[in-house]
């Protein structure tokens, strides 16, 4: 992989020649693969022929100095993230690669990406009972508690493995997986070698219990990481294992999904070299009948961060996935104070109810009304600090805690009600009220507890066939942080191609009157089939973007942006 990387600080013509070389390499490798496939599998030609497919995306932005918001000018003026995936499939074989270019990386995503390369390339064979992949691959065991390699370009996360993955389906309802690999770290690999195995059995299929209504699936996984110990003071465990077991039961509209995980001592930068083992349990119960649905869930974890390097920080080299229990809010102001899982310990609960009032009833109106109620709360776990026994070789459990204990400190809480209602043939509406409390003091070490009340109203009017106008109004009221905000947005769309949108976020409640700023944005876009282009200009406020409880900070910026994407 390393020889494909072109460092961004090289002069442009060198980059060009390198790019050409890379392109040539790609074309020739694909030629080889293609020829190999056609000669090897010509006998299958009639039923399964080969094909290419792929996608492409580019996001670029200019960064101008904005003395009002304090946004900085980028020395490069324009920054860009882009990638293209290419896949070739021939019968049971697939080969693919992804070319990525960050020249230089957009602000808010680690500039360790700066450069260009082919960090993702694989070869895969898949038959009904056996599948293997060599090269780069993504994988998830169960809910991801013991292992999850995934990509999220918006967050700048890509912790794909480079190595070997085998999946085997020896009997109907029985699924086995095994992998060995190192994880991607920008254009390099992390130091840890990861070995993982997972088994899942769907009892009804495995034992031909077709007539039994209750569906039961059991699973278990074991993941081990090897990283050499070169620490002069501490004796660090070189092989660290995590294991998890899971259960899923489903009957009619009722379902329960649960997973328990245990991690052997793993002193790391995340847990400040705590030698204590980690534990986690997560359960979701859902029930649905008619137009009613509900989910309740609980989760408890202690010291469960697991990465393929002990010293990794931020979103680097994450080996497992522990999603936040709170709801992922869609609109910008409700998502202003998002919560991310505290990997060193937290206890949380959630409940969500969906109910659709039927059409042509008193409350349901002509078209019916969907009501969603959501509640979540996360506390610390109860811990007692332990003294250091030996300051020369400080191998110790930093604290003790008991399984499922709950601490006194509230980390996060939110409650919200959403109402979705179609008012007439041409008017659709959405309203939401929310209360959020975010313990920034505990999580970020500043600003105390932030409490906010939020309102969202969103109406869409069909003006004439294919023309629609959407109007959005959001309020956020808080005494802490930057005070009150209002967001107004107007969007005019002409199906199937065009949209134009105006958004203004106004920090009218900022206690510093010089900072009562407007963050405006103008955007327009054109879509045709799977090709899309969008351009915009405006100010972006400093904030946090979170997906799945994993977050990144976005600094304030002002400038033009352009996005182009295509799938082929």
């Amino acid at each position, binding site marked *: 992989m390393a020889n494909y990387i072109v460092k961004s600080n090289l002069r442009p013509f060198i980059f060009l020649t390198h790019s050409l070389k890379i392109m040539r390499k790609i074309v020739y490798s694909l030629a080889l693969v293609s020829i190999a496939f056609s000669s090897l599998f010509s006998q299958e030609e009639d039923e399964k022929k080969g094909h290419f497919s792929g996608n492409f995306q580019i996001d670029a932005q200019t960064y101008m100095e904005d003395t009002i918001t304090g946004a900085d000018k980028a020395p490069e003026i324009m920054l860009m993230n882009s990638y293209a995936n290419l896949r070739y499939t021939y019968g049971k074989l697939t080969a693919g690669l992804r070319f990525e270019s960050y020249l230089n990386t957009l602000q808010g995503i680690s500039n360790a990406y700066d450069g260009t390369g082919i960090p993702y390339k694989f070869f895969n064979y898949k038959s009904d009972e056996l599948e293997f992949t060599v090269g780069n691959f993504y994988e998830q065991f169960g809910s991801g508690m013991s292992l999850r390699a995934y990509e999220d370009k918006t967050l700048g996360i890509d912790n794909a493995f480079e190595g070997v993955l085998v999946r085997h389906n020896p009997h109907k309802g029985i699924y086995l997986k095994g992998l060995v690999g190192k994880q991607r770290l920008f254009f390099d690999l992390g130091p840890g070698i990861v070995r993982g195995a997972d088994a899942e059995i769907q009892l009804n299929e495995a034992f031909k219990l077709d007539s039994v209504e209750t569906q039961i699936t059991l699973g278990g996984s074991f993941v081990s990481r090897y990283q050499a110990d070169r620490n002069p003071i501490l004796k660090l465990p070189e092989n660290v294992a995590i294991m998890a077991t899971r259960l899923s039961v489903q009957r009619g509209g009722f379902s329960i999904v649960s997973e328990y995980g245990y991690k052997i001592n793993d002193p790391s930068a995340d847990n400040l070299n705590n030698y204590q083992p980690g534990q986690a349990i997560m359960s979701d119960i859902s029930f649905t009948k008619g137009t*009613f649905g509900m989910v309740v869930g609980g989760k408890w974890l202690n010291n469960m961060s697991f990465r393929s390097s002990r010293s990794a920080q931020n979103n680097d080299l994450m080996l497992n996935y522990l999603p936040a229990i709170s709801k992922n809010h869609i609109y910008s102001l409700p998502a202003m104070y998002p919560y991310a899982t505290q990997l060193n310990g937290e206890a949380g609960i959630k409940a969500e109810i969906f109910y659709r009032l039927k059409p042509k009833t008193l409350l349901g109106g002509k078209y019916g009304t969907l009501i969603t109620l959501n509640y979540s709360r996360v506390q610390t776990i109860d811990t007692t600090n332990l003294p250091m026994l030996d300051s020369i070789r400080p191998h110790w459990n930093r604290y003790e805690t008991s399984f499922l204990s709950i601490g006194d400190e509230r980390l996060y809480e939110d409650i919200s009600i959403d109402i979705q209602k179609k008012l007439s043939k041409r008017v659709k509406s959405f309203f939401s009220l929310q209360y959020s409390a975010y313990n920034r003091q505990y999580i970020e070490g500043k600003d105390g507890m932030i409490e906010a009340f939020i309102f969202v109203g969103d109406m869409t009017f069909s003006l004439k066939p294919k023309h629609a106008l959407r109007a959005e109004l959001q309020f956020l009221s808080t005494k802490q942080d930057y005070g009150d905000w209002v967001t107004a947005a107007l969007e005019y769309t002409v*199906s199937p191609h065009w949209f134009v949108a105006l958004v203004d976020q106004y920090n009218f409640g900022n206690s510093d009157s010089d900072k009562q700023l407007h963050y405006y944005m103008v955007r327009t876009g054109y879509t045709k089939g799977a090709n899309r282009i969008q351009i915009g200009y405006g100010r972006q406020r400093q904030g946090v973007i979170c997906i799945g409880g994993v977050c990144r900070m976005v600094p304030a910026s002002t400038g033009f942006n352009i996005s182009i994407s295509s799938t082929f």
Partner: protein
Amino acid sequence: MFKSKQPAMYKFLFISLISALALNLTAQNIPSVEIKTMSGKTFNTADLTNNGKPIVISFWATWCKPCVKELSAIHENYIDWQEETGVKVIAISTDDSRSMSRVAPYVNSKGWDFEVYCDPNGEFKRAMNVANVPHTFLLDGNGKIVWQHTSYIDGDEEELFEKIKEIK
């Protein structure tokens, strides 16, 4: 042999590539990937079928507003579409383990009668080269992708229906 650096070798390979493509290239079929049914069973995407009638595959997520708008709009017309063309709509939820448990109750309370599957680690999404949700594919009776669309704005479902009707 493949490590040869000689230009003639490259030229040969390049020509072979073009001819291999000309011989082999066909419209894309549904790739074979394991996804989950709503009851937690493993399901292979190569088995997605509608007995020779068109199929719509829509990638969505419970947290994605335009996705939900698109599926709601399709839902409003689904009975008519089915009567006229026999089309089947398959909704692939890309919700990960954070929100996967929401999918079944959410779909039910919405009253959607689509076939719904979960792709929690984006494996099917990746195999279909989906960059962002919503992304909708239209497949003909032979399972070939004949049209696809990314994003959703109000009224886009009419274009989709026009494309479904063209298949007949």
